[in-house]
């Protein structure tokens, strides 16, 4: 157990008072960054990076990675309270978290979100501690075809989860793909659909769209409903944390499955956002109560949060062992490593043992500290909903505008956010589901890229997606999930015929 010895040394490094203090500061800053939409972990860390040059590398990475943990925790807060995802990976948390808050169960949803985040991260850290080298080797097997297969699986596990009619789901998704295609095409190096406008060169950033589609449109809906929060009369009680905890163990299988999805997506590296969507989709599919997802089920909060945090944590592994960031935030941390004079990659584990194990130890401790910090604050977070809507709505609007601006320092994005807000409102009124649109917008770009890279490699042959056991099995899983609704419908019909009722209502085309 060489790892355990090294880990203990790591804890010794982390336990230095200065490092503990930086850890607390990092968590607090991270939660703040996570709460502010747009100012994501990546931006936050990039801004604070120069502050760390004077520190020893271990202290610097402890503080910055704690900002990352804090941001992972914090992203859930606004998703649940206001339907505004603070971070891309908390979009899926809004699906059930926000309905829970509207039913006056904000505190329960927050507790479930934080706790499952912690569980996901913890499982990922244990994995990093003991099987890092094996896992890192596995990541090397992922070329463009495998990457496309993973993306395909994400879409497949998500399709059909939408409550809306299939045609509306499909058109929302196609709109998402269309928006994702605007801007630079990495494969040909050409600009697409910018219509000569310099503002369109950037393309549509996912966060700007999400802040508008979810946040602004929600404010518009609330205004229509009479200027108040539905969840304002929530009972706020510190004991709610214990009550939720008591109910959590029965979801152990859900949590474990979501963690595995998260770890896998973090390592491949696809990142926390697809992980949260995929985990939510699978949870809904596997649940006996699938139909009531999206109306405030606690499983709908546990699944994406566990997966997002597991993915966010394990995304650091390919960064450390291969020098490839598994998430945008990890990319900025990677830049930091180089500036502190550390070369990320396979040699880091060999040459910088103190640094690596200090970081891993800080993951354990940082997540425990983070959980305590956010749980203590749950009643206060939930109490925000008691502030009159007319005051808080104005504040939310300003914060959203700042967030949209921060994504790429562009004023045009604020206009874009408002347009997306109106579009989101109209789509909601017409009963179009927003989730498939968002999914296509966030993954569309990279899915297309992986698909075309694969075809370049295979010189145009689609057989590349079934060229080895890994890519074939992922694709097969994807097709199985995709065809599941059809198959189950056929089975239902056959059963119905046998029993002679024939009362099954066929789905719309």
């Amino acid at each position: 157990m060489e790892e355990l010895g090294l880990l203990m040394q790591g804890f010794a490094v982390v336990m230095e008072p200065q490092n503990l203090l930086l850890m607390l500061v990092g968590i607090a800053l991270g939660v703040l960054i996570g709460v502010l939409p747009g100012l994501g972990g990546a931006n936050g860390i990039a801004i604070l990076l120069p502050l760390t040059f004077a520190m020893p590398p271990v202290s610097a990475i402890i503080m910055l990675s704690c900002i990352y943990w804090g941001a992972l925790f914090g992203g859930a807060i606004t998703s649940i309270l206001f339907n505004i995802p603070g971070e891309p990976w908390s979009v899926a948390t809004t699906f059930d978290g926000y309905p829970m808050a509207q039913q006056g169960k904000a505190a329960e949803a927050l507790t479930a979100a934080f706790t499952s985040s912690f569980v996901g991260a913890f499982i990922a850290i244990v994995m990093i501690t003991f099987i890092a080298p094996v896992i890192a080797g596995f990541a090397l097997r992922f070329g463009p075809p495998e990457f496309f297969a993973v993306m395909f699986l994400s879409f497949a596990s998500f399709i059909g989860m939408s409550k809306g009619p299939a045609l509306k789901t499909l058109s929302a998704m196609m709109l998402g793909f269309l928006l994702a295609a605007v801007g630079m095409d990495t494969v040909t190096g050409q600009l697409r659909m910018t219509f000569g406008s310099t503002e369109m060169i950037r393309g549509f950033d996912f966060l700007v769209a999400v802040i508008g589609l979810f946040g602004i449109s929600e404010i518009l809906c609330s205004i229509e409903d009479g200027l108040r929060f539905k969840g304002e009369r929530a009972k706020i009680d510190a004991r709610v944390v214990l009550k939720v905890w008591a109910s959590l163990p029965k979801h152990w299988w859900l949590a474990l499955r979501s963690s595995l999805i998260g770890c896998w997506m973090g390592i491949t590296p696809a990142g926390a956002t697809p992980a949260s969507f995929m985990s939510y989709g699978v949870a809904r599919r596997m649940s006996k109560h699938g139909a009531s997802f999206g109306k405030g089920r606690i499983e709908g909060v546990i699944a994406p949060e566990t997966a997002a945090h597991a993915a966010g944590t394990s995304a650091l592994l390919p960064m450390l062992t291969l020098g490839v960031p598994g998430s945008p935030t990890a990319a900025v941390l990677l830049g930091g490593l180089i500036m502190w004079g550390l070369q990320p990659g396979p040699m880091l584990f060999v040459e910088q043992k103190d640094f690596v194990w200090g970081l891993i130890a800080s993951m354990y401790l940082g997540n425990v500290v983070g959980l305590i910090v956010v749980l203590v604050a749950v009643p206060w977070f939930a109490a925000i909903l008691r502030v009159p809507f007319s005051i808080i709505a104005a504040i939310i609007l300003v914060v959203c505008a700042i967030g949209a601006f921060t994504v790429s320092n562009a004023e045009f994005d604020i206009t874009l956010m408002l347009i997306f807000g109106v579009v989101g409102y109209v789509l909601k009124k017409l009963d179009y589901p927003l989730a498939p649109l968002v999914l296509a917008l966030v993954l569309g770009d990279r899915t297309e890229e992986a698909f075309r890279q694969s075809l370049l490699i295979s010189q145009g042959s689609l057989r590349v997606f079934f060229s080895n056991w890994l890519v074939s099995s992922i694709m097969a899983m994807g097709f199985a999930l995709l065809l599941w609704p059809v198959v189950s419908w056929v089975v239902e019909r056959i059963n119905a015929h046998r029993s002679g009722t024939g009362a099954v209502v066929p789905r719309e085309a």
Partner: protein
Amino acid sequence: MPPAGCFRRSLLIGAGAAALVSPAIAQKGWEPTRPVQFIVPAGTGGGADQMARVIQGIVSKHKLMRQPMVVVNKAGGAGAEGFLEAKGARGNPHMIVITLSNLFTTPMATGVPFNWQDLTPVAMLALDEFVLWVNAESPWKTAAEFIAAAKQERLKLGGTGSKQEDQIIAVAIGKATGAQLTYVPYRGGGEVAVQLVGKHVDASVNNPIEAVTHWRSGALRPLCVFDSQRLANTEKMTETMAWSDIPTAKETGLDVEYLMLRGIFMPAGVQPAQVAFYEGLLEKVRETPDWRELMQQGAFNSTSMTGDAFRAWLTKEEARHRTLMQEAGFLA
């Protein structure tokens, strides 16, 4: 803040001297009066971004400027977003831009209305090298063997972006030797290196800093460097090789040369005194040990230029890129 620093600062304030400005910035002439925006026309984590953030770090660590420096990534449209912003900021002395080869390639490939002459050149900081890498388990020990293999069957070469430096080199190799290379574009250099380690592509032309760790771990093998002379660094990076042991492309019979500009520009229409300030600032940055360490780590070609020499170099290089892009069929 360590106690020693606090003590020194309070001492200075106590002295109440008017000249408490550090000597580095006490020269006459223009000085920034607002925070300086440092635009990176590329995403976070890439080579240009790293260099910009190192400069930012050095400037604040050694207190080379009184106003803060803020790094802003404007990566949209292969950097077009950042360049257009700088072009639009005519006369603004509180903005600098770091450039890579997309200074030439992006407007040529996309037709975005922009040219380096829309900016004021300040200084060339360094040139980034390109090395031909293959997987260490591949049978090719020299560039000549690799080229011969690529003539037999089509090989895959991975690189960063499309119609940019990596693809220009790939096309140039094909033109010079008749080798058949399929170029596969990826988002970043680190990703390309890992794809090569995982054998999803057959070769790459990664910058030294992007691939060095995989070389040292024994996963990759360098075949040649696309410079007219060998790399300067003679320190052993692996058991047997130093950067200086990699032959040049020419030595191995491959007539391709390519270096990438890492330079700093300002918007057009700024005062000479303002340009002089940043020239001086960058000069001081280059003298710090932190900078030398970066140059060493990334095996950069540390040629630097300012003023007319830099302009002449840019004019020549733009013409060369136009020819290369035209030959490759990349012009918009």
